[in-house]
């Protein structure tokens, strides 16, 4: 019913850049959705969010700290982050806002006015 999103794993476009899909969470509140995407190492400047053909694309380019020394144990992945979602028709794409704090991008996706429940006064 109110699925914010269907994830578009492969939107057919060729990408020369290598990305990994970061973990994300969708939280539904009464008048919209909140989307949280984990992007450690991404600052405000590295965050690139766009909507095209009802498809929301979130790209996070990392600016990782430069560490002096020899790497002796390695688990992190150097790739940038990318995820795409198909927007539910109830979402007002013009009112999406976003911020990033400590590597967690938070997007607010309000529902369009006409789908919000509105009380009609009776005279």
């Amino acid at each position, binding site marked *: 019913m109110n699925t914010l*999103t269907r994830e578009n794993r492969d939107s057919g476009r060729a990408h020369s850049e290598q990305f990994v899909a970061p973990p994300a969470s969708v*939280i539904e509140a009464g008048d919209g959705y909140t989307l949280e995407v*984990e992007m450690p190492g991404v600052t405000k400047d590295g965050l690139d969010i766009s909507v095209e053909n009802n498809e929301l694309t979130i790209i996070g380019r990392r600016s990782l700290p430069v560490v002096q020394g020899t790497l002796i144990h390695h688990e992190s992945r150097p790739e940038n982050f990318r995820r795409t979602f198909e927007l539910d028709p109830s979402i007002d794409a013009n009112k999406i806002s976003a911020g990033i704090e400590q590597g967690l991008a938070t997007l607010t996706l309000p529902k369009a006015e006409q789908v919000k429940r509105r009380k009609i006064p009776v005279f």
Partner: protein
Amino acid sequence: MTLIRYQAPELAPWSAADRWSDLRDDLNSFFELPVWSSFARAGQLFSGWSPALDLYQSNDNVIAVVELPGMRKEDIEISLHDGIVTISGERKREGSSNGEKTERTERYTGTFSRSITLPTRVDGKKVSATYRDGILTVTLPKAEEVKPKQIQVR
């Protein structure tokens, strides 16, 4: 060096995450004891949260870099004991109490703990850490006696 093996974060599509949370919900209703349900809800029963950790070594320092997106500084703890540094903490679930409902979640909430046996002795008094953009950098200065020294030939 004993290191806990890192498990890559779930990169599966939504459907897999859905199945996982369905299973979790089933189990929550199955175990009626509150201790079980809260344990299962924290996600620790099936897969813990094991953040990616890199370790560097330079002449003067051992440096641990840990990816911890979306934490509060106060919720991260670093301790050093017997040449083992432990980085632990808790990520609290936020906002789920006031009428909001989580549709799908791939993010771990709950506690994590990573321990690393350091390759060399460090000076515990001089350990410092910074947390920026979701990345924790812990700098552990080597103890004076293990630092490489240049010996002058006369």
